[in-house]
């Protein structure tokens, strides 16, 4: 941490209101939710600033990051449209600054009731008696499903019939060539698919 030692006056630096509003714009662009009000973004920016106040390293990172944004924007980052602003953020996404903003935002932006309301999450439920009488089973666009295995179901075959069982069938049968394995995502590399003597 060479930088803060060389410029100890940075320890006294309070970020400006302008810096705060750039930070809010960064969070809005990086985590765009059309139906979120401003408050959660502002609160998240304040959380980031509060954390930066406790750490010289974060404060250095934020100061440098905000300056870099202005360089890449060729002026005021806040004046870029969403697409251009996103491009700038892509260019800095590997930086300490952006990592700090991203981590802190992910941990805090979504941990508040106003955001839960916007997303359709109802929060604590025990005090309301859970959802037993409040819609845990109110989905109406699919038919009711069996909750027990159908009595008509054939028992699960636990070991496929074509498996070479080293204990019981030491010579391995070859899997049928006609078998449809098109649901396999990749090459078959499993040992037991090989024929061995």
């Amino acid at each position, binding site marked *: 941490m060479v930088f803060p030692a060389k410029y100890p006056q940075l320890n006294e630096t309070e970020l400006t209101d302008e810096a705060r509003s750039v930070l809010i714009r960064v969070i809005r662009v990086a985590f765009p939710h059309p139906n979120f009000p401003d408050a959660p973004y502002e609160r998240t920016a304040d959380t980031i600033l509060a954390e930066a106040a406790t750490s010289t390293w974060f404060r250095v990172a934020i100061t440098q990051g905000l300056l870099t944004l202005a360089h890449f924007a060729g002026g005021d980052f806040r004046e870029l449209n969403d697409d251009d602003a996103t491009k700038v953020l892509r260019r800095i996404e590997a930086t300490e600054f952006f990592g700090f903003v991203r981590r802190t935002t992910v941990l805090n932006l979504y941990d508040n009731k106003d955001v839960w309301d916007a997303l359709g999450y*109802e929060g604590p439920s025990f005090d309301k*008696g859970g959802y037993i009488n409040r819609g845990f089973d109110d989905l109406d666009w699919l038919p009711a499903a069996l909750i027990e295995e159908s009595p008509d179901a054939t028992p699960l075959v636990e070991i496929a019939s074509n498996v070479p069982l080293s*204990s019981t069938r030491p010579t391995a049968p070859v899997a049928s060539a006609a078998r449809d394995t098109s649901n396999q995502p990749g090459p078959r590399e499993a040992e037991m698919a090989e024929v061995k003597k």
Partner: protein
Amino acid sequence: MTAIDLTDDAVVIIGSGAGGGTLAYELTKRGIPVVVLEAGGYLHNEDYVNDEWEAFNQMAWLDPRTTSGSWRIARDFPNLPAWIVKAVGGTTTHWSGATPRFKAHEFAARSTYGRIDGANLADWPITLAEMEPYYDKAEIAMGSTHVHGRKPLPANNNYTVFANGAKERGYTHYSTGPYATNAEEYDGRPASIQDGFNFQGDKNKSKWSTLVREIPRAEATGLLDLRPNSHVVQITHDASGRADAVLYLDSEGNLHRQAAQLVAVAANSIETPRLLLQSASPMFPDGLANSSGQVGRNYMRHTTGSVYARFDKPVNMYRGETMAGVIADESKHDPDRGFAGGYYLETISLGPAFLASFVEPGAWGRDFTEILDAYRNTAGLWIVGEDMPQESNRITLNTSVTDKNGLPVPNVHFDDHKNDAAMREHGYTQAELLYDAVGSIGAHRTPPYPSTHNLGTSRMSEKPQDGVVDRWGRTHDVPNLFVSDGSQFTTGAAANPTLTIVALAIRQAEYIADQLKTGGI
């Protein structure tokens, strides 16, 4: 509660979760006094909170740990390899409740799967037939639905999507259980109110845990000396190589010595080998009970992953029992799928706070926020399957990082085996097809969360050179030292492990009680 003197040679159990809590009850029930040393505090059901981060900070094991290896956890959550609990009741207070049994061939993985390159497979020294009576006892104790006359849980919204998809895909082995949460009053505990917070401890006591069943019953015998906030740092031994005491720290950092006649370690699969390694001595230079060199190795975490699928209509997946939905069709062993072993698909749900943190760590931008914006219309499932034991997947002591007591922290090293990667890929594909079949308009493949199923680091083996403990969980090297948690697992099977840990603990308690009576220990 009985106070057992520090100088009395006690039966000492380290940990109060699925293994330790069960063992404590089963021994005290038979008239054997025990000391239980629990690293965490004593939280009660009314202490729990319906808030993901607050509950996490209240319950989770947050002592520092480090990680290495190619798993994403080492990048995304380098100090949180596992998501387990530090409190009385252990991780049974956080688990969701799914209780499938192992299949017969999963106790014989080496014989069934054959030799697999890079995998340190072995057969268990026990069979399903031997375990069946104990599975019965465990299911009855835990109140597993769908078996022994226990009513199934009703379908919640997430399950209705999941089960309809299963049906469309031709699966036939799907249901809302077995699941150790009451659908109706049972064993003195009420029916589920479907509050959706069983990862957060379950305030309603409908979910089985050792906190609601085994610990209070053991206390009621008057034979349990439960000491919360007691973090064991070493097991010592006498000149003959028998365990003779346990050293532990209280919450103020004071060291105590509890003399021991018998020690059972049930500290979960990271702390159990950590403790054995910390107990190295001139007689056991590589760690207590580690003549095989297998202590800490073969760390397994199940092959997991989630798929969150979006629909154009509401699901509200967070309402109701989180994991009361199981598809068993893929739990078979069918190497034509491209891998050995099988996996279950189980419903899962996270709130927005956790979904944001875990759905795609490191992601941002519109691709990320559209996952959250679709929250109300999202259904989720979890893939949980057998992973390959590998000697290099391993818990070691990281002597360059210490915890607040100056103890070396455990390092968790993990690389996926190619069998694990192939299974996960298959699971993702099947899950997406399942949701497509009921009209999904988009889905996201979520990587494994910090491990909840930690297994295999003191494994059971027939021969002492292949593992750490014998068929009873008794260490091959130290006759009065037992391992009583998921560390014993020789292989992981596809099933969620808690039922098997409990069944093994019930079985081990019978053995220990018998040995104590007959002087075999």
